[in-house]
Each structure stands twice: as C-alpha cells, then as structure tokens.
C-alpha cells in the first residue's frame, strides 16, 4: 500500500506493520491506523504516522532510551483492550513535543503508547503512577541517569 504524507512524501507501507488503535489517540480519536518507523539509525526519536490523516504524525521515543529505570503498570482494562498475553509482546513509546529549541524536548509519560507487537494493536493509556508526568525533559533525564 502506498501513501502520500506531507512530511515524508510517498511511503510504501507494509500492511503487516500497521498498528491499529481502536480508540485513536487522545484528541485524534478518528485516527485509528498508524505506522511506526525511524528515519535515521542513530536517532532514538521515531515517527508514528497516521494512515488516515496524511498531515498527522507524532514524534515518539522509547522511555528506556532516557530512563533505564522506567516501568509501567498496565491496568487490567488496558491489557484486555490490546489483547496482551505477555509483557514480552509489548512495546512502549512516549509521545514527544519538540519545541523551537529541540534541547528542551519533552516526553509524555502520563499518556504512553502501548503496543501489542504480536497483534499490532495499540492504545494510548493513562499511567496512574504519580511520577509519570506530562513533560519529562528528555536530555535532562538522560544526563541524570546516563551522564
């Protein structure tokens, strides 16, 4: 399947890699199909492009990239919604806001994206862990944990 995106131009999409979000993403409830990819090998930031709205794409990052202690307790409902049988079948991403000064980029750990990688089902969940905030300064946390 070929799509024509505003950021990346024409993309060849493998149907087997399409992730379905049956509830969409908060604020973008009609976007239910996304494709996740990276554009540079040495960049932990990745893209999540909507297959419904060619103008819509989110920058995402695996929280483990900047916080090795990251963990997420999934609610029973979230586990059921993505049909997850084992934590080994899951992948977790945080949506990233990149401001004009990219060094101030933040990751949202309060509303992480959880994906069942076996079945390609995804959901933006709400973390009930009070340490998971809306804005985590990625480079600052990397400095703290890895610097």
């Amino acid at each position: 399947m070929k799509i024509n995106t505003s950021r990346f131009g024409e993309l060849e999409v493998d149907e087997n890699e399409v992730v379905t979000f049956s509830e969409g993403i908060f604020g973008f409830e009609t976007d239910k199909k996304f494709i996740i990819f990276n554009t540079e090998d040495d960049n932990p930031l990745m893209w999540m492009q909507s297959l419904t709205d060619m103008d819509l794409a989110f920058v995402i990052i695996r929280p483990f990239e900047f916080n090795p202690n990251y963990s997420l307790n999934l609610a029973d409902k979230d586990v059921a919604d993505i049909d997850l049988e084992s934590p080994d079948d899951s992948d977790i991403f945080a949506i990233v806001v990149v401001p004009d000064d990219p060094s101030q980029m933040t990751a949202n750990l309060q509303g992480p994206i959880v994906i069942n990688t076996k079945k390609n089902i995804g959901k933006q969940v709400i973390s009930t862990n009070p340490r998971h905030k809306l804005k985590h300064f990625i480079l600052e946390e990397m400095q703290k944990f890895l610097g």
Partner: protein
Amino acid sequence: MLVLSRKKNESIIIGDDIEIVIVDVKGDQAKIGIKAPRSISVHRAEVYEEIQAENRKAAATKEIAGLGNLFSKFKKK
C-alpha cells in the same frame, strides 16, 4: 445531565456494579469514593484534557533530522 443532591456518606449506584460515595464535603471540595470493577477506568477529567492538549502540541513537529546528535554524547559511555 442528571443532577442529584447527596449528603456526606450517601451514594449513587450506576448500573449493576459502580457505586459513587460522597466521602466528605468541605467548602467547595467534595471527596468522592468510587467502587467499580477493575475493567472500568476512572480518571480525573483534567488528565484527559491535558493529554489531548499535549498530543496536539506534539503533532506540530515537522522535522527531527539531525536531532540524533543531541543524544550522541550519552551514547559514547
């Protein structure tokens, strides 16, 4: 919207298995207890609104090429 008046320790039942209890009322603040099955998610409304707003901000990013450099100084360790 259905509006009901409740006093402290009174409750409301929704469906078969959700109970909302007014635990305490002080001034303009009500402390509310919720008994619901684990399959029901319960969150403060602001949390949804804040995540929606954050998602909209995130969707404005057009380009991240080259930002890998910002991470490279950590990778060398």
